[in-house]
């Protein structure tokens, strides 16, 4: 059941909330059991079989966690085996559903084999659920989670607001909240929750879904061998970057809002990523909980081990005496490997793998520049002032270019789009536009821009939507900044808020504004459109 559907908003959610608050008045434990029951119902809605697939995985993880908890200190060998076994089990579980078909087709490609492809239906949200389970096992083994019950563990895994596409949460940040939260209706939480949900719905159905209408045809054409001209290619590349941002951050706002109805705050997942001034900064603002997971459980252990080994051998690490071999082993290798895993996690396909590798290279270049900068521009403040706009532009274009791989159905289609963006297929715009630009017409023609018979209004509308979305993403405060004084998410600083007139308050003015936002969102629900990240 999609968050952006009538069935969810007017059917599932009121029932879930009424049951929770109603039972919560009688006994707290019943409200929690109800929340688990509706979460299972939410998950079963697509395919009841999903529940049967996920249930054994939950029980096995729970059993392993018990072993880790009991023998963590007394029998390190057993504890280590249980942890590795648990991580292995989760990776294989995910691998079977997500990567088997891809693996078979790769074997066919590489060895010219003729394996019959197994068609496995991916249980919804499995990538997100798997990461959370792995983090839980590691945290139990490290002693960061001391106590847990089966009921709490099931709630942690299946809590419906963040079940399908995150944010990727830690048990240790969720459970204390569930234990402390009131199970009674709280008007303050509900007001913040409904505001977050309305903003998210609006971002999704008004911006992401509308921009998709202009992006989809260009990618479809590129995939079927009809190359896009300069304007179409940029429309599609910029458009998809904005689409995926409004789609995923819209989904996240809705998830944060839904959790808040139950008195729970989810961690911040987006912080205006398109405002980032470098690619390291971008990854601290985009899908923050994924970056947090990858850093804590893949990059840090790997990088720590590599750096310690190098130090033990007495070889220089990076600092003022940076060397190429130190850069390759301590920086490039762990960074690219981590982002390769990130790419593969997003999807089983060459496009996602290349997308991950590209970002790994971006990040390494950024780190290399930070090292070189110390020598080239020792005056940090003067440098920062001059480099800021340049850094933003470079980061933005790098992200837009990479997103072609995220959207294109094949690497070839992404390359076609890139060629189009570079002007490789010429530049044309509709005659209906080109011939009505006054003095500019002759100038554009001289610059090599041809006229075409395509729709002028589609061209104008597409670019207007992109301009509007871009303006919002780059200039406006984000949802969390608007709601900052009311702690809309974990990790939001109360003082990092928006300008006073844009700061959310329980006032009549905001009530009217939000009524409009949610009305437009609900009235735009016409067509069923899934979230991009729900496919992962």
């Amino acid at each position: 059941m999609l968050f952006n559907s009538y069935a969810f908003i007017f059917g599932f959610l009121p029932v879930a909330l009424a049951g929770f608050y109603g039972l919560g008045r009688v006994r707290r434990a019943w409200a929690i059991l109800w929340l688990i029951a509706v979460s299972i119902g939410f998950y079963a809605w697509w395919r009841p079989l999903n529940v049967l697939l996920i249930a054994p995985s939950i029980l096995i993880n729970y059993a392993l966690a018990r072993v880790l908890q009991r023998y963590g200190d007394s029998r390190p060998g057993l504890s280590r085996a249980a942890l590795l076994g648990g991580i292995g089990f989760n990776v294989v579980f995910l691998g079977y559903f997500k990567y088997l078909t891809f693996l078979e087709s790769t074997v066919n490609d590489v060895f010219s084999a003729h394996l019959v492809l197994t068609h496995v239906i991916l249980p919804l949200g499995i990538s997100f659920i798997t990461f959370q389970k792995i983090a839980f096992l590691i945290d139990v083994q490290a002693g960061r989670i001391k106590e847990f019950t089966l009921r709490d563990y099931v709630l942690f895994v299946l809590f419906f607001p963040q079940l399908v596409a995150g944010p990727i949460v830690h048990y240790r940040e969720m459970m204390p909240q569930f234990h402390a939260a009131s199970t009674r209706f709280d008007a303050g939480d509900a007001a913040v929750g409904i505001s977050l949900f309305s903003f998210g719905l609006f971002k999704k159905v008004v911006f992401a879904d509308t921009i998709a209408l202009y992006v989809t045809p260009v990618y479809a054409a590129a995939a079927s061998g009809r190359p896009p001209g300069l304007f179409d290619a940029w429309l599609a590349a910029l458009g998809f970057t904005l689409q995926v941002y409004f789609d995923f951050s819209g989904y996240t706002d809705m998830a944060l809002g839904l959790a808040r109805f139950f008195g729970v705050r989810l961690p911040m997942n987006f912080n205006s990523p398109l405002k980032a001034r470098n690619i390291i900064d971008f990854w601290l603002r985009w899908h923050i909980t994924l970056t947090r997971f990858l850093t804590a459980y893949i990059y840090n252990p790997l990088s720590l081990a590599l750096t310690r080994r190098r130090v033990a051998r007495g070889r220089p690490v990076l600092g003022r005496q940076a060397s190429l071999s130190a850069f390759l082993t301590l920086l490039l290798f762990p960074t690219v490997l981590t982002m390769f895993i990130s790419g593969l996690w997003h999807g089983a396909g060459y496009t996602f793998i290349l997308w991950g590798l590209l970002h790994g290279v971006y990040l390494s270049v950024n780190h290399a520049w930070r090292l070189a900068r110390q020598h080239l521009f020792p005056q940090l403040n003067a440098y920062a002032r001059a480099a800021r706009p340049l850094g933003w532009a470079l980061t933005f274009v790098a992200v837009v270019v990479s997103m072609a791989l995220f959207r294109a159905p094949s690497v070839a289609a992404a390359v076609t789009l890139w060629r189009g963006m570079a002007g490789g297929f010429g530049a044309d715009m509709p005659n209906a536009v080109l011939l009505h630009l006054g003095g500019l017409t002759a100038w554009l023609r001289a610059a090599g821009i041809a006229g075409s018979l395509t729709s002028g209004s589609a061209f104008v509308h597409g670019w207007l939507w992109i301009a509007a979305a871009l303006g919002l993403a780059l200039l406006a405060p984000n949802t969390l900044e608007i709601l900052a004084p009311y702690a809309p998410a974990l990790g939001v600083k109360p003082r990092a808020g928006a300008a006073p007139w844009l700061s959310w308050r329980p006032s009549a003015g905001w009530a009217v504004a939000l009524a409009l936002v949610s009305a437009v969102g609900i009235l735009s629900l016409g067509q069923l459109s899934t979230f991009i990240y729900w496919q992962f």
Partner: protein
Amino acid sequence: MTEQDILAVLSRILGELLGDDAIALAMTTTREDVPGWDSFAYINFIVGAETEFGVKFKVAEVESFPDVGAIVRAIQAKGPPLHPAP
């Protein structure tokens, strides 16, 4: 060693890593307070501190130090009363 001694050494390590001799860490400093103190510089910093003080942190600790003060306390708890290299 006192907190101030450890802070002075940690400040020197980070200053060398980030090419900024003006860095002066306090117990309450967090990574967000220091420009450029990214995940990469952080790992280098941790290994630098391990080498300097002759201690070894657990991976789980490394990830969850909330501020510099937590690192200082971990060093005090683990470390033998070493005399760091000048």
